[in-house]
């Protein structure tokens, strides 16, 4: 076993990004993950960290409209970018159509994986994916331990139908 060295005092970096439409700036360590930056430096705790290994998808946010796993990105990589998190989905206090569908179809139980799914499905909706593509390709990349996915699939169907897609 090699003897590890004492951790060096971290050099702090300033990260500035447009987060949910507002320019936000905070000091962070270069090694900090985007998920930790959002949660602990900006206080946006709606983004949840389920595995920190890029598998579960709970921490998904949109960076320049693209869904990314915020546990696989460094905060410094988000400098100058546009970030959207679950906190931005409700407009003027009203839940989005897909958020409402998730409630009505019981698409969430413990709610921990939900923000990541909301962000991925929101991106799919904007990209014009079909309900089937969204169910197979997009939801297929998320882990939910509670619901068995049936309510989430029903919410996607229901919302796409309602929106006439």
């Amino acid at each position, binding site marked *: 076993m090699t003897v590890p060295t004492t951790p060096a005092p971290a050099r702090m970096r300033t990260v500035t990004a447009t987060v949910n439409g507002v320019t936000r700036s905070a000091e962070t360590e270069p090694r900090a993950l985007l998920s930790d930056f959002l949660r602990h430096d900006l206080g946006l705790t709606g983004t*949840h960290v389920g595995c920190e290994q890029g598998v579960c998808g709970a921490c998904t946010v949109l960076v320049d409209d693209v869904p990314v796993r915020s546990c696989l990105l460094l905060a410094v990589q988000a400098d100058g970018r546009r970030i959207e998190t679950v906190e931005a989905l409700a407009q003027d206090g009203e*839940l989005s159509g897909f*958020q409402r569908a998730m409630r009505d179809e019981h698409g969430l139980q413990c*709610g*921990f994986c939900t923000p990541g799914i909301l962000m991925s499905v929101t991106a799919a909706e904007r990209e014009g994916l079909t309900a089937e593509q969204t169910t197979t390709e997009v939801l297929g990349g998320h882990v939910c331990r509670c619901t068995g*996915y049936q309510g989430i699939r029903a919410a996607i169907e229901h919302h796409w139908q309602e929106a006439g897609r």
Partner: protein
Amino acid sequence: MTIATRNGDTLVGKRMPRLHDDRMLRGHGRYVDDIDETGVLHAAIIRSPAAHGTITRFDASAARESGEAVLVLGPDEIGRLTDPLPTTWRIPGQHLAAVELAIRTVRYVGQPLGVVVARNRAVAEDLAELVEIDIDPLPAVVGIEAALAPDAPLLYPEHGGNVAGGIHFGPPVEELDALFAGAAHVVEREFAVQRINPSPMEPRGVLAEWIPSTEQLTVWASTQVPHLVRQEVAVGLRLRVDQVRVVTPDVGGAFGGKTTLYADEAMTCLAAKVLGRRVKWIEDRTENLTASYQGRGQQARCRLGLDADGRFTALHVHIHGDVGAFLSTAGSGPFQVAALTIEGPYRFGAAGATVTAVFTNAVPTGAYRGYGMQESAWIRERIIDEAARELGRDANELRLLNTIQPEQMPYTTGTMLTYDSGDYPAVLRRAVEMGETRRRPSTDRIRRGIAVTGNVEITGFAPSALLEMFQIHWSGYETGTIRVNEDGTVTVFSGVTPMGQGIETALAQIVADELGVPLEMISVQLGDTATAPYSNFSSQASRSLPLAGAALITAGATMRERMLGLAARALGVGVEEVKLDGTVFRAGTTGAEVTWRDVAHRGWMGWGRGETDKILLEETVSFDPPGITYAYSAHGAAVAVDLDTGKVTVEDYWTVNDSGVLVNPLIADGQIIGAIAQGLGTALLEEAAFDPETGQPLATSYLDYVLPLSEDVPDIVIEHHVTPSPIITGGFKGVGESGIQPPAATVGNAIANAVPEIAAGLTATPLSPSRIWTLLEQAGLEG
């Protein structure tokens, strides 16, 4: 049971979205890691890298001298400052009655040995790496067979063997042996169920704050059992229980994995106490997969005897349960429940079950949703299927021939469980019928098959007297409090806790109905030991709704009468003339009105009460169930088996379920579907495996611990059969665990139906492609 008939528009029985979903969907869930971090220090746990060995050196000097560590505690300091944690349910022969916190002999990889505290989590983890631990290795004991081998290394040499304890239920084995000797046909098989990680999406975590001036500890914990955590923290840290308050914020799933105080959580609380600060520890996924207690993990030899007509004459199962490195809080509990529930919905001439609990060098096992009853369903339903195949009989016909009939209720089993109610043949017949429309043809290399299974489930656990008889230190009863506040709002307190199962909404529906007020007036507040009635058992064992619901029905009925009485006096009329309409009381004769809010205000002023009436506008009722109420179900699966790859696809899945009176069918269906999905994970995918030589865990991330994804779970069809529980006020039975118990057996039997050539070998889960392909190869079917 008044609620179903009070008015036409009852909330009980109404399929409605949950009350707190709006908040969760906005990202306003508040889990333990979301609590304000001002002034919070962060802990990392120092864990054993070895499966078995003696610690000869624990040297934290490099960490301490780094200038970055706020605190490091190792086994010596922990030993000086703590006492071992108590256990609640023990097995005869168990020599360890407590969970040690100060570890000198490591017995599993990931065992917590110490704690480091620093300004953030990353620094704390860096510092934990600096701690040098020398361990004199001992050979690792991996798996039940290795543990029971004659020359096996011993985890506790002073105990003289790796058997942790044992128990037998039902008639003596010799008596059963005689019945097997006289049976026309005996089927015998060895079955296994793998270790499973409960794997809630939110790992465990605690935030602890010790205030030196007042000597009070507050612990925010992601737990199912705040009161149990409180009493165990008090024991572990040598505090009075009233110095500790435990609060559960939102909990991101639990599934049995959060039903105790773990050693790493206790160490975090200790760090807060030593420092007089706020200290947080959040488990990462690797820790969760390797160091949180696991579920299942057993081998069982089962024998089923039948007479010439196919009637079940005898059943015996000997379960060897892998308890891991030590017996956790309820240690052998799941294995004992597997034994107790081996008979399911069938009659046997005689039935008995034996449990042997075995130590191995692996993380301890404990509660996981289904709690022994998934294992018993797997054994029972598979061996019945094997018997039918050997006899050339139809498996469902054999099941129905032996099913307990409704007129035999209440029915006492060989292991002395008394089933309270239900029509077991009806759900089985209906599930068989549903299967007939779901048969699909096989093709050349894709074989298809279907199967139906039956199950009975312990819910609403349990009468205090029963727990006392078994010396299980859990509060079986449940207490509910309804307070009508001075502004007329209604606050409901209960000892049960929310973890995503929707109990807040269901209890609000019950109380709104019982009081007769709109749902919006009810706030259900759970999980804070400062306000929640005592319940150290809380939300597990499919008990929250039946027991808390029953208590609140009685409390609500009394509160409604009290409010009517206060309204009558305010209106100057007899109580029989007063009707509550929405939030207004009206006198039938005079038409005079007084609002619910004004009546509540008068109540708190102490006005208008009878001479002997109490003032406090609060009703508290404890409900101790007179017996266990049993839910039951039949499950069906249609599978496709790819002979080229061994991959099994579940194409259709259906269930007919009886959980008594349903409060919110949307939530009940969600519980059943979610549990079936977990059951399919056990059936086909999940396995917490260990290296057979070193005892190193092999599943350390979600890349090697495979959870079901959307594509693995078909849309599940649910039909409800409603038999109100005759022993639970409100007629409720539990529903949270019913879905998880039969899927492995149902899928296994459907595979057997599809590929009878490999049926006899379908004895262990997960039925992964490699396991199936191996069986196909042995049968010469691999192509």
